[in-house]
């Protein structure tokens, strides 16, 4: 049971940072930016390159995160501002197209093989009877710190107040003297930073390859939608629900169902669980758990 809880929390770490980034941007500019999962891959590759260039990991992580944040702002100014004038569906398609171009860049630059950070191998420790590795604990620390920092910006600073005001009513916010464009770009920057950190923590515990973005896309969306797209902290709850479902599907013995006493589903069904949960959930609550937005007719 403890192992189940820990597996769930570890898996939630994979999703939480990127899902929070997705939700945070959605709350300001109303379109789900699919390219965010690719920003995570950019962050991981960039962090790795920086480490190979001789930067210690403690520096490589934040530098890569800041660079990806800047990149996210550049894409927002060059692409999405323009596409959003045509509508949110068009911007969504544009972000899918951007993802495809980014994966082509990864393919040419890194090829199809998997990469990992240069980290010392650490044996698993025992914590209350469950297996935990040192890297899992350090990524937990990074994730909690990053999410804590984001929450602090959102709720304690002037920028955070402006972000919340803009999310609630953009026209009113701009009428009361808030530079909404600057607020949006600041949020986009933060989302890039969070996504890049998410990609790097994933790569620290395993490896990163060009498929990572495609693999993360739907679980991250499922988490963000479950938490109510636009509700950044709800996304954390969504990530926990999704990862609990995935852990349950892959770690449970379904032998009772077929009468043979032993049946484990293949690991790739973990994804199926999150998609099915997403679709089933959308049938019941078409706009997420924690939203009160009025849906289309």
């Amino acid at each position: 049971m403890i192992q189940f809880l820990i597996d769930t929390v570890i898996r939630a770490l994979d999703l939480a940072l990127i899902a929070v980034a997705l939700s945070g941007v959605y709350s300001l500019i109303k379109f789900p930016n699919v390219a965010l999962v690719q920003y995570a891959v950019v962050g991981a590759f960039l962090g790795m390159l920086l480490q190979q260039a001789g930067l210690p990991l403690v520096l490589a992580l934040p530098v890569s995160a800041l660079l990806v944040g800047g990149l996210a702002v550049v894409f927002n100014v060059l692409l999405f501002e323009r596409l959003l004038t045509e509508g949110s569906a068009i911007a969504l398609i544009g972000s899918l197209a951007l993802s495809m171009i980014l994966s082509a860049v990864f393919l040419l630059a890194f090829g199809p093989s998997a990469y990992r950070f240069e980290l010392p191998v650490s044996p698993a420790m025992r914590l209350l009877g469950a297996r935990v590795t040192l890297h899992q604990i350090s990524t937990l620390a990074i994730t909690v710190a990053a999410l804590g920092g984001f929450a602090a910006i959102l709720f304690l600073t002037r920028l955070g107040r402006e972000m919340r005001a803009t999310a609630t009513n953009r026209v009113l916010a701009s009428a009361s003297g808030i530079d909404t464009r600057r607020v949006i770009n600041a949020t986009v920057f933060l989302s890039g930073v969070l996504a890049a950190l998410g990609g790097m923590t994933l790569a620290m515990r395993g490896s990163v390859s060009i498929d990572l973005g495609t693999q993360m896309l739907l679980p991250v969306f499922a988490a963000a939608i479950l938490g109510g797209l636009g509700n950044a902290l709800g996304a954390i709850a969504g990530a926990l629900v999704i990862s609990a479902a995935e852990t349950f599907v892959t770690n449970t013995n379904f032998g009772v169902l077929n009468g043979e006493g032993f049946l484990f589903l293949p690991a790739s069904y973990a994804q199926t669980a999150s998609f099915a949960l997403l679709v089933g959930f959308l049938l019941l609550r078409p706009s997420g758990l924690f939203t009160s937005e009025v849906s289309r007719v």
Partner: protein
Amino acid sequence: MSDFLIHVAAVSCLYGILALALNLQMGFSGLVNFGLIALFGCGSYGAAFAHLWGWPPLAGLALGLVLAALLGLFFARLGARMSEDYWGIATLSLAEIMRLVFTNEQALAGGAQGVSGLPVTFSTLAGQGAGLSRLALYAALLVAAFILCQRITRSGFGMALKMMREEPQLARALGYDLGRMRAIVMVISSLMAAVAGFLYAHYLSFVGPEQLMSHETFLIWSMVIIGGIANNWGVVAGAFLMQFALAYVPFVKDWLDLPTDFVAATRLVIVGGGILAFLIWRPKGLFPERIGGSHG
């Protein structure tokens, strides 16, 4: 006509049918479907099951059509209360579930290996006859699909669809049953996609889960966006343009002596870059939608 040209033209015709089906959904009705490939998959797996179970191919077509109609109705049902972004993600998820199940269930149509050895349409004809007859059949079906789409979009129902796309609240206020319209559009275009999937299965003589990758859906999206959203001529032109552009990428690779990854990367750039370039500089595509006078 060389075999290669016949091949590319034949595949273009099948993708033309898919592009028309997507255009009916997203172009005219505003239904942002990211799971079109699942409807195509109903047709191709219908053919695969018929082959495995020893049924005649036409029974496979019937099976594929039934599956596609049911899935289309389920998509429409999902769309009943969801905003378009959510619906797009939900359809993408459903297509991925389908692909993952077919990949992992060995007993279900061969798992990741898929089903091979399906009878190829017109394979008994000699020489180029087989290829040309297939091309003729696919072209005829493309023309039929095109006429069907033109008739639908120029009818009163087509006008209602456009109103649903532009002003859903107004359409509802005027007494249109949006759920029913959505269901009709989804079933018609699902059947079109399934026919294309069935023919494609009996063309390649192979059906496998990697044909259901979400990239394929975005390839069809690129055809619609480049050709011209909500223009039936345009999307067929877009399908041919994209298929011919992609077909010649390997030649460029050989000519410039580039590594194999170049082909996959260039395909991604052509599809993704094509979509982005057109969305930014020419959002109405090569052949913009004709507004007004469409009854003429």
